[in-house]
């Protein structure tokens, strides 16, 4: 086969075409979406109120068809009719004839909103609508397609939440501090509610369906929790002394709650008994904990973690079931939970946030390890020199003070969520 054969083969792909009905329906949709049915220049004009819309439409019609007021009135009736269709669609549920109009309407709202921040807020709101629908559907035990609808709604919910999260991360990456803080606050507040609603709805479902969809609910809840944590970290990260996004007291409360939750999950997953303040998990200071060389800041906290109560013993007492075995990611998590708890006690929100960020990173790693046939913890290079900036939350009091000033001065940078942490003895 020579070059011209290759080109002619490639040309055969030109025969891929969309469905004609789809082409026509999208054409209509796009060309009729302009609220004034007028010019593009009006399409994204500032949103007027509903009454302004109607008045504008009436005026344009009577202007254009001066001698046909009845036509104008008729058009208004039609328009009002479609307004009511959209309004009626708002309360529709999956399976209802108007439900697709509801979703289409949501897409329009999303498409016409200008900024990523607005879009993220809209999407998190729309995720809430899926949950309202889910609550309604879960009550209808006689519904034949209940399971499919529940699955579809949970998937749609997750998709909306993930998309909002992606937008939030995008704004965060762009360094737009103020913008991301307001988005993160909305996402944080809403996602907290959503986790509870999901758990409650799941338990209200008939047990036959509950069994089948439990995995999907578990995944949605864990995803929502993760996004909740990420948004909280962004709030802290972008705070910079400004209390408008969230007050310190509120943040501390949220951090404590988050740690309880993570601690609960972790001790459930691991046999290590590790309540805050308990010294059963102690990791020796230098060299006891190593981070991946590619993730400078991720490794930094671990390198100097040392339990002050055991100072001087130099003891390594990772209380994993298999004593003497290589400490696992779960051990690293426990250490970080402890470190975060201590940071909170010292009112060092930034340091606590860092530790939680790293817990998230470990979770990511565990998840990705699970996907790739659960490879064991990989010992990594310990030559990282970026070790002393923030990890001294568990050091003695003087050092804690030093590290705090470091953290608040230089460490308001991005929290590294790179999943690349492991500890080795």
């Amino acid at each position, binding site marked *: 086969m020579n070059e011209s054969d290759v080109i002619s083969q490639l040309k*055969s792909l030109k025969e891929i075409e969309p469905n004609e009905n789809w082409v026509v329906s999208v054409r209509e949709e796009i060309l009729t979406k302009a609220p004034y049915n007028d010019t593009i220049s009006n399409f994204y004009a500032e949103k007027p109120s509903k009454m302004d819309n109607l008045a504008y439409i009436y005026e344009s019609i009577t202007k254009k068809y001066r001698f046909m007021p009845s036509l104008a009135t008729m058009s208004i009736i039609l328009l009002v009719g479609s307004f009511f269709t959209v309004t009626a669609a708002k309360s529709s549920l999956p399976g209802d004839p108007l439900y697709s109009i509801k979703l289409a309407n949501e897409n329009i709202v999303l498409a016409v909103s200008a900024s990523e921040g607005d879009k993220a807020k809209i999407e998190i709101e729309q995720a809430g609508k899926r949950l309202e629908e889910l609550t309604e559907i879960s009550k209808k035990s006689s519904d034949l397609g209940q399971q499919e609808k529940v699955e579809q709604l949970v998937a749609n919910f997750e998709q909306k939440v993930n998309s909002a999260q992606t937008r939030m991360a995008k704004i965060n990456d762009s360094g737009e501090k103020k913008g991301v803080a307001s988005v993160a606050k909305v996402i944080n507040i809403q996602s907290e509610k959503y986790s509870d609603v999901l758990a409650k709805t799941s338990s209200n479902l008939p047990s036959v369906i509950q069994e089948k969809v439990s995995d999907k609910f578990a995944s949605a809840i864990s995803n929502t929790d993760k996004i909740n944590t990420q948004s909280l970290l962004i709030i802290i990260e972008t705070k910079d002394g400004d209390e408008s996004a969230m007050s310190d007291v509120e943040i501390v409360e949220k951090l404590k709650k988050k740690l309880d939750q993570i601690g609960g999950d972790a001790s459930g997953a691991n046999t290590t008994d590790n309540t805050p303040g308990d010294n059963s998990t102690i990791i020796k200071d230098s060299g006891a904990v190593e981070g991946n060389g590619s993730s400078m800041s991720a490794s930094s906290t671990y390198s100097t973690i040392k339990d002050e109560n055991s100072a001087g013993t130099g003891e390594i007492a990772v209380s994993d079931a298999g004593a003497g075995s290589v400490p696992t990611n779960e051990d690293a998590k426990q250490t970080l939970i402890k470190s975060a708890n201590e940071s909170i006690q010292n009112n060092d929100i930034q340091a606590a946030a860092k530790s939680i960020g790293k817990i998230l990173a470990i979770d990511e790693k565990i998840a990705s390890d699970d996907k790739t046939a659960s490879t064991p913890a990989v010992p990594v290079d310990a030559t990282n020199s970026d070790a002393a900036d923030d990890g001294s939350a568990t050091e003695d009091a003087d050092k804690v003070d030093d590290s705090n000033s470091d953290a608040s001065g230089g460490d308001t940078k991005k929290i590294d969520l790179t999943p690349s942490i492991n500890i080795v003895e």
Partner: protein
Amino acid sequence: MSALNGLEEKLLMKRVLAGEKEAFAEVYDFYVVKIFRFVYLKTNSKEVAEDITSEVFMKCWRHIKALQEKLKEGISDAETIGPLLYTIARNTVIDYYRRKNEDHVGISDEMKEKIADKRQNVTEKLIIKQEVEFLIGVIKELRDEYQEILLLKFVEDLPNGEISQITGKSEGSTRVLIHRALKSLEKALNTKENIRNSK
């Protein structure tokens, strides 16, 4: 439908920017199949390609509004609509993959049937289906930038200038990239062909 020449493109964009709705309808009619095909070959799903394609036209509409404002303030030049649409499509697909880590270029059974249906007899249909499948499979193994440049150059028939606008590369490197991509596909096709024949 034949391609628009430079002047026609400019006139069309001028009408679109003037807010003429009919002009946007013409843009849609001219580009919808192309954009759908471009997105389809990148996403391997009819449904996803449909969603992304309609999103592309909505985004394009919004972009034009922003462009109108910039033109009023004299801070931008009018763009050409074709490269604009492909760029939006490309970025929307990238966003889609950021959300979902799925397989790139590929082709669904349904679309293979559709291509095959255009052929005359049954035997030819079967051969075409296999060939398309084979070709897509080989393209899929190429580097992402090769896949993209081959689609833009030989399936969408875009001139190098427009391709460089879409991909953000210079015309010189676009030319080199097309050449390398083609060689790479040729080599891959021959290798796969030999393997297939030896079985």
